[in-house]
């Protein structure tokens, strides 16, 4: 656990950080976000004593960092510097191997670790031999990230670690980052200027403005209850959509909105059944529970009874781990307002309905107003 | 001639005696209406080059140096002082340089030892040779590069006296540093110049040269012919310099070296005492 107590830092006249008190939970990811120049980097650097505060105290695991040996302190804290700061005279390998070497790991172990890290940051192993000047901006940043992770520190300070990385690599990195975090449970402070990233990765988000802490809460809470106009503005006009990205489909399954039929059932029979049950959707499921196709009952002017049954043998499906925003997007793409949800093996688990997505937001609102 | 019209540049090399002699020339000339520029302390060859290239007008030089070094005749040894003077004067005429009257003082090379050591080494080169040969490798010689290198230098002297000197007994070094070196016992025999004022200062004894091995170094003023033609009175004015013998010169040098009186003052005091100015 990291605790900042009334921390203030001035640069000349400018109060870069003002009376900041903050408790960062062990094993959690805290995202720092705020306008540029609001003091995020300064705060980070105070935690590993690159900058000494003018006032206040900082405790790591209950012990003041100012009573600790700075070098030892910093070795226990991984640090991804904002302007990357790779050592130009070292190869990528040597840059990453730096801290393990300081800690006198044996070379075999280092070799394994570096390979592992290069893979983690989605760089080919051949990059080990390159020099920083030969890398593109995003490649450099990924090496900087690997370097900070190298010795597996308990605390990680990450100053815009994905700032220059393209969306594909970024989402890969975010995924593997979250995956690792789930098992290793590090205490992570992560500065970002990407509000989506803050929402996706953060257990908590600290919003700063002009040296002050404005709001410090769980992402959901911040999205649904922005403290003031500034936060609202920061979250963007589409913050309600963003909130949906935090919700997994698995929690919004509807198992009553459809009928299941065996594959190959007579269409007229299905039509009949749907009418009786007052449903529009029938899903063809085989004996193993695997979804095979989808029947929709649609209005039709050509049909005598004003309705026709369409069949789709390769229906668009969602996975239970997709989030609501993905579901919404897929509904927009297909024009359907409900989509079957299946397991990775293809087993049907239910459907997700557009109305439910809306209901979810409503419910959150209602909850708040109690 | 008004003072100021007669301008002249006086040179002097970079050791005490030269400063004394240079100052004397300079005082005498300026007392006689010359506007003197002093160019003292130049390296030996540089001083001579200065004269040859008309950047200096006159300075005190030694016959032996001119003969061996400037005229490149080191291999022809002439031991008659007057003959040497005549030969040098004659040959240098071709270079546009006039040698004024020589002084009896002979600032030749010499070997000196600590006074305490005279008991052991004796007071001549002959006795030194004997001691040295009886105690091979014991005596350390501090010798200047010039003397070491010259055909008529150190090795020739050793030959002449039958001194068996090993290479390892010789320290080539700056002549100025050799006094401290012998005083501090880092060498036992120093190459010196006979009129050096530091000999009494450091209580050193010059060994005699029974075989007259060392060449002659009589002092005389060298003037460029051109200047002498222009100011023939110079010869007359500088005549007192030809009076110096070893003792009187060494005394003046001693005043500078040991009593630390500025050379210029030593020169002026002497000229005043002699009633020359």
């Amino acid at each position, binding site marked *: 656990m990291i605790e900042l107590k009334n921390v203030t830092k001035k640069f000349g006249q400018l109060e870069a950080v003002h009376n900041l008190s903050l408790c960062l939970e062990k094993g959690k990811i805290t995202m720092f976000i705020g306008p540029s120049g609001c003091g995020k980097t300064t705060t980070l650097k105070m935690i590993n004593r690159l*900058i000494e505060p003018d006032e206040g105290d900082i405790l790591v695991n209950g012990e003041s960092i100012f009573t600790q040996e700075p070098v030892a302190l910093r070795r226990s804290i991984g640090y991804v510097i904002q302007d990357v700061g790779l050592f130009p005279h070292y190869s990528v390998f040597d840059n990453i191997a730096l801290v393990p070497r300081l800690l006198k790991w044996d070379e075999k172990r280092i070799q394994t670790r570096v390979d592992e890290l290069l893979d983690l940051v989605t760089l080919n192993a051949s990059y080990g031999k390159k020099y920083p*000047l030969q890398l593109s901006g995003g490649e450099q940043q990924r090496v900087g990230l690997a370097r900070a992770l190298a010795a597996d520190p308990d605390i990680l300070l990450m100053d815009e670690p994905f700032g220059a990385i393209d969306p594909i690599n970024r989402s890969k990195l975010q995924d593997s980052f979250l995956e690792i975090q789930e098992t290793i449970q590090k205490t992570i402070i992560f500065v970002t200027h990407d509000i989506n990233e803050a929402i996706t990765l953060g257990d908590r988000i600290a919003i700063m403005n002009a040296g002050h802490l404005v709001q410090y809460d769980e992402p959901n809470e911040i999205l649904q209850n922005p403290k003031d106009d500034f936060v609202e503005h920061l979250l963007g006009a589409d913050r309600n959509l963003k909130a949906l990205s935090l919700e997994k489909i698995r929690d919004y399954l509807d198992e009553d909105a459809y009928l299941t039929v065996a594959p190959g059932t007579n269409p007229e029979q299905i039509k009949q059944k749907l009418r009786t049950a007052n449903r529009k959707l029938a899903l063809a499921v085989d004996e193993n529970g695997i979804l095979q196709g989808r029947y929709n009952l649609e209005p039709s002017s050509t049909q005598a009874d004003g309705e026709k049954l369409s069949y789709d043998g390769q229906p668009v499906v969602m996975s239970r781990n997709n989030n609501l925003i993905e579901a919404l997007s897929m509904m927009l793409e297909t024009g359907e307002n409900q989509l079957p949800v299946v397991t990775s093996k293809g087993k049907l688990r239910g459907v997700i309905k557009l109305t439910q997505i809306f209901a979810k937001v409503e419910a959150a609102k209602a909850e708040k107003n109690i | 001639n008004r003072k100021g019209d007669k301008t002249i540049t006086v*040179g002097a090399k*970079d*050791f*005490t005696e030269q*400063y004394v002699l240079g100052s004397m020339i300079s005082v005498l000339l300026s007392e006689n209406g010359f506007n003197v520029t002093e*160019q*003292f*302390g*130049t*390296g030996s*060859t*540089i001083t001579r*080059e*200065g004269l040859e*290239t*008309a*950047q*200096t007008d006159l300075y005190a030089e030694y016959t032996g140096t001119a003969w061996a070094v400037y005229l490149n005749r080191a291999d022809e040894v002439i031991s008659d002082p007057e003959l040497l003077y005549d030969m040098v004067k004659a040959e240098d005429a071709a270079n546009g340089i006039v040698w004024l009257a020589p002084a009896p003082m002979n600032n030749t090379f010499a070997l000196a030892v600590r006074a305490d050591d005279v008991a052991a080494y004796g007071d001549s080169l002959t006795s030194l040779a004997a001691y040295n040969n009886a105690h091979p490798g014991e005596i350390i010689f501090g010798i200047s590069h010039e003397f070491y290198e010259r055909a008529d230098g150190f090795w020739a002297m050793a030959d002449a006296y039958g001194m068996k000197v090993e290479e390892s007994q010789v320290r080539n070094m*700056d*002549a*100025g*540093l050799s*006094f*401290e070196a012998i005083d501090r016992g880092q060498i036992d025999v120093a190459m010196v110049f006979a009129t050096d*004022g*530091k000999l009494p*200062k*450091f209580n050193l004894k010059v060994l005699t040269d029974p075989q007259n091995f060392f060449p002659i170094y009589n002092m005389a003023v060298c003037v460029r012919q051109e200047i002498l033609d222009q100011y023939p009175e110079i010869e007359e004015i500088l005549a007192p310099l030809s009076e110096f013998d070893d003792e009187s010169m060494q005394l003046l040098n001693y005043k*500078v*070296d040991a*009593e*630390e*009186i*500025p050379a*210029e003052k030593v020169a002026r005091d002497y000229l005043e005492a002699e009633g020359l100015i």
Partner: protein
Amino acid sequence: MSFFEFLQVYQSKIWLEFVQHLRIITISIPIAILISAPLGFLISSRPKLAKIVLNFASILMTIPSLALFGIMVVVLAPFKLGLGMTPAVVAISVYSILPITRNIYTALNQVSPSIVEAAVGLGMSRGQILSQIKIPLSVPVIMAGVRNAVILGVSVATFASLVGAGGLGSLIFSGISRTNLKMVVVGALLVSFLGIVVNYLFLILEDALTPAGLKIKN
């Protein structure tokens, strides 16, 4: 004679030689810098030429001062400049070439590639990049070279007495030949004093030349 007596007796001579030494360095050091610095800038972007110039400067540096003076007495004689101030100035210039050009060359070639790239990308010409970017950023290293050269110059100026230019060298050299330690010490102390003063002046110059942005350290 006590040291104090010595100072009294030699007072005027010491003062004279001190002033003369000062004259030598105030004339020669600016000249030396004006020769060496442009040469350094010239070679900074020409590695082949630089190799030649630096090697040549190294050779010049190895010529013993006495030999250099001997050569100049002859070479400069036709202009009546072989003795006195001129050879001193020439010698000081000659010896300053290596430390100044080498540091300039090294400094200019290690300016961060990304800064140079930014300058090139903004459309600065070679000359502009040199004068506005590379040189200001290299001031500390360049001035380290210049200050070394200057100190060397103050020191080489002592040899000026061997070519009749006088200066504190005449105290030192006649002191040595007279084994007059006081004279040597006074001469050496005054040379050192000049060295410190000149060093200090160049420190002020360096401070003035160093861009404000480079002096900011956290």
